[in-house]
Structure formats: C-alpha cells, structure tokens
C-alpha cells in the first residue's frame, strides 16, 4: 500500500541517517515495520522504541546494545555494564561498539518514538555516534518533533534521507487501498477523494473514518455529513468509532486507555471484570489502533493517538474515574514486580479529579502518595536509593526527596524505622 514510501526508505548507499518526522497518526511506525520486513533478508535491522526513561545515556545505550545484539547475534560486543559512568561510556564503550559494527558489516537500527528523548546528553551521544559510525550502518529515526541532530552537515554530505508529513500523508490511491482493499468498504472514488480532502491526507483520520464507516449502514450520508462540517476529525470520529461496539468492548477500550500496555489479566484487574483477554484478541483482529507487542498475542498497546482520544472520552463519560483505574493498575504491577510501570500509575493515581471528588483511599494518618508508597516498598529491599532511582528511572535526588517525605509523614528518622512503621500501618 505504501510502496512509494518503502522505496524512498531503501536509501542509497552511504546514507547514515533516515529521519521520518511527522505528527501523531502519520503511520511512521507502520511504514517502518513494512520496510523492515522487506529489508531483513538482506541485512539485520534492530528496533528500539524509545521512552522517556532512556534520557540517561547509559540507559539508552544499554537498550540500544541489547536491541543490536538481538538482531545481530554475531556482533562482537558485551552488554553495557550497569555501573558504568557516562565518561567511560563515551570514551571506552561507544568506540568499541563502533568497531564491532564496522567489523560486522551492513546493519541498521530503528529508533521509534525518538521525540521521547529530551535534548541533552543522550541525544548528544547519538550525534557523536552518527558522526563516527561507518557508512555500512544506517540509523533510522521516527519522531514527532525535530530530532535535534546535526542534520545540516549530513544533508550536505548526502548522508541523510528525510520523509516528512507532506510525503507521509495519503493520496487518494493510498486511501483507496486502505478503505476498499483492507477494510472492504467499496467506496466510490469521489467519496474517497472527499475523505482525503477532509482529513488532508492524515492517515489516522482516514483510518478512523474507515472504522466508523465499517459499521455505518448509509455510507454516502456519513461521507457527506463528515465532509460538510467544521468539527475536527478526531472530535467527529471518537463517538462514531466507539458507539457501534458492545458496551463490554466499549468499557474495555475506555478503561484500558490509562494503561501504557495491556494484557488480559491486567485489563481484568483494572476493569474488575473477567473476559478481557478474548475481547482484546477480537479487538486487535479488527482494529489497527490496537497494536500487538509480541507474537504470542499476550501484550498489546493502543496507538498513542487513539489512547488519547479514549482518555478524553473516558473523562467525559465517567469523570474522575481515571485515578481509580490507575490505582488498580498500580496494584497489579506491584504484584507482578513491574515497578517502572507501577510508578507511572502511581503518578496517575495521585492526580485528583478536577473537582477533587476522587478521594484517595484511607491510609490512616500517614497519607503517603502513591509514588511514595512505591518508593517505600522499594526501600524494604536491598537496593540503595541510587539503585532504586535507576530501577524506577528517577534521579537520585527525586528518590531522596521522596524518602525524606516518607520519613517525615511516618514520623521516623531512618530507613529501618520507616519499614517497621510502614509494616505496622499495613502500608507495605
């Protein structure tokens, strides 16, 4: 379907960096997935989806190295040691990695969601890497914002391929392939053109329209109603996409929208209702916005844009429920030892509804925030505050100020007292 773009991604020899820069919903990840499938017979392509925890260069490069080794098992490099400092990483580890890549031969690395990486040391280390890596290696990044890498120099040397929103948008032929071939809607060419015009070729908008149309009896009425109005595409379509589903499936979609990723048991816990796994499978089969994260059909995530729309709808239909859902997700992740995600939900659970209607559960006099509870739980283990920070992707200072605040609220002055008091208060 996106043949012309996959061609563009077959960058000429000597291309060091390919940049896909466009807002949410332009199909960057999907396109890279299709390109990767075509490329893999010729050279290995490693894949890393960046998240905001990767802002520490040591964390970033340990994930990059792991992704490279997974794609290229013969790559002669050891894992980044956990206790390495930034200077050693730059002076010793990265040069070794570059040598290993040179010895290995043609390969590529995709960094998806590159915008999650804030400017700073992690981005600088990548710029340094791109500058020195041999031209047999291609770095491909997908990003919603300017990557903040030295694109000018690469462009001048013919080492850069760029694809931006103007090129990533759908033309009528591509929209027709999506709507008629993939979704089987059998629309007239003029109807397809009207949808492309209304969405300005924005792939997510066209797909949302397609999902709505699948369950709409009078398609031409829908197309003209949609084309005629001034309402933004996302505003118009969220109801249309949700409403045709069973109430159970609607609830699943709305309530799981607070989750970064989801599996059957986690959704069951958040919804306090069984049967999520089957509904998830069924949804994933019919909705491209439900993205599988593994081959086993266990973990999924919503497309970010779709998740955001669902959260808007959740707040509209069930105001103030989100913190409760976060709290259930937090409990599940604590039980399963996935602490980084537990902490994310702790942040969500701490945010009260606008009217303050959402009362946090009673924790006696201590009244620790959910974030502090996660840190308190970590303090019962063997890790130092610095290591806890690493584990939770928080700075040492943040962990330290959380634990000071915990001590203060519990009226104690040491870690062991805090643990004792926490246990006797039933907090941990």
């Amino acid at each position, binding site marked *: 379907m996106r043949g012309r773009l996959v061609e563009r991604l077959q960058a000429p020899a000597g291309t060091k960096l390919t940049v896909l820069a466009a*807002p949410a919903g332009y199909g960057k990840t999907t396109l890279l997935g299709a390109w990767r499938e075509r490329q893999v017979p010729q050279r290995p392509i490693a894949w890393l989806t960046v998240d905001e925890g990767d802002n520490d260069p040591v964390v970033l490069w340990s994930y990059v190295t792991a992704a490279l080794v997974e794609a290229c098992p013969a790559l002669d490099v050891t894992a980044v040691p956990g206790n390495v400092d930034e200077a050693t990483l730059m002076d010793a580890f990265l040069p070794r990695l570059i040598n290993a890549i040179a010895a290995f031969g043609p390969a590529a690395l995709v960094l998806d969601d590159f915008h999650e990486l804030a400017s700073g040391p992690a981005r600088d280390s990548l710029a340094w890497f791109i500058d020195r890596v041999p031209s047999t290696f291609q770095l491909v990044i997908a990003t919603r*914002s300017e990557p903040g890498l030295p694109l000018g120099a690469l462009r001048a040397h013919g080492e850069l391929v760029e694809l931006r929103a103007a090129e990533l948008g759908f033309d009528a032929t591509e929209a027709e392939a999506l709507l008629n071939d993939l979704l089987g809607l059998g629309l007239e060419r003029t109807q397809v053109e009207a949808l492309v015009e209304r969405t300005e070729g924005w792939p997510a*908008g066209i797909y949302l329209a397609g999902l709505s149309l699948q369950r709409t009896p009078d398609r031409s009425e829908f197309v003209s109603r949609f084309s005629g109005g001034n*309402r*933004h595409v996302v*505003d118009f379509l969220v109801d249309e996409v949700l409403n045709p589903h069973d109430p159970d499936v609607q609830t699943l979609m709305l309530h799981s929208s607070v989750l970064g990723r989801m599996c059957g048991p986690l959704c069951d816990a958040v919804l306090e209702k069984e049967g999520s796994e089957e509904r998830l499978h069924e949804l994933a089969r019919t909705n491209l916005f439900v993205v599988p994260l593994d081959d086993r059909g266990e973990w999924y995530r919503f497309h970010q844009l779709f998740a955001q729309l669902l959260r*808007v709808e959740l707040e509209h239909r069930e105001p103030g429920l989100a913190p409760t859902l976060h709290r259930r997700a937090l409990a599940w992740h604590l039980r399963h030892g996935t602490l980084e995600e537990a902490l994310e939900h702790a942040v969500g659970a701490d945010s009260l509804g606008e009217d303050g209607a959402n009362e946090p559960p009673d924790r006696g006099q201590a009244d620790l925030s959910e974030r502090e509870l996660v840190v308190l739980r970590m303090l019962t283990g063997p890790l130092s505050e610095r290591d806890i920070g690493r584990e939770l992707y928080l700075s040492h200072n943040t962990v330290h100020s959380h634990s000071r605040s915990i001590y203060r609220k519990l009226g104690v002055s040491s870690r062991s007292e805090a643990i004792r008091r926490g246990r006797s208060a039933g907090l941990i």
Partner: protein
Amino acid sequence: MGATYRIVVRGEIDDRFAFLFNGMRMERVEGTTVLTGSVVDQAQLHGYIERLAELGLDLLGIEQLGEPVGFAARAPTQGKGKE
C-alpha cells in the same frame, strides 16, 4: 511565571477535550478552536503543546495575554517588568 495564554488550533473541538488542558476555556471560531486560560509555567505550556501534538491537532498560534489579576495580587513584589 504564571500568565494567561491564548492557544489557537485548527479544527473545532468539543469542550470535553478541556480537561487535558486543566479546564482552559474553549471557544470554537470559524473552523478553529481558541483555548484561553492561565498557565503555571513554561513546563505546563510545553506539556499542553505536546498534548495537542498527541491528538494530531495543528497549532496555529500561541500568545501570552498578560498575567492574570489573581496571580499579580499574590506576587510579593510590585512593578514587575512584564506587562
């Protein structure tokens, strides 16, 4: 640092989106939506812009309208340089 901002995006969106922007006022004007309200600091402002991007909304304009009265009244010093 708190101040009132006006943010203009393309397309008309419903008030239900307002909670993503801490209840900023939303007005729909000829195919655009105008969000007006106070913003605590630059970090919050950037958060709002990021949220617009997540929704695929095009940003048309953004301007500071001056500090809200409530904030100025709370500020400890008089005669601040900013309008």
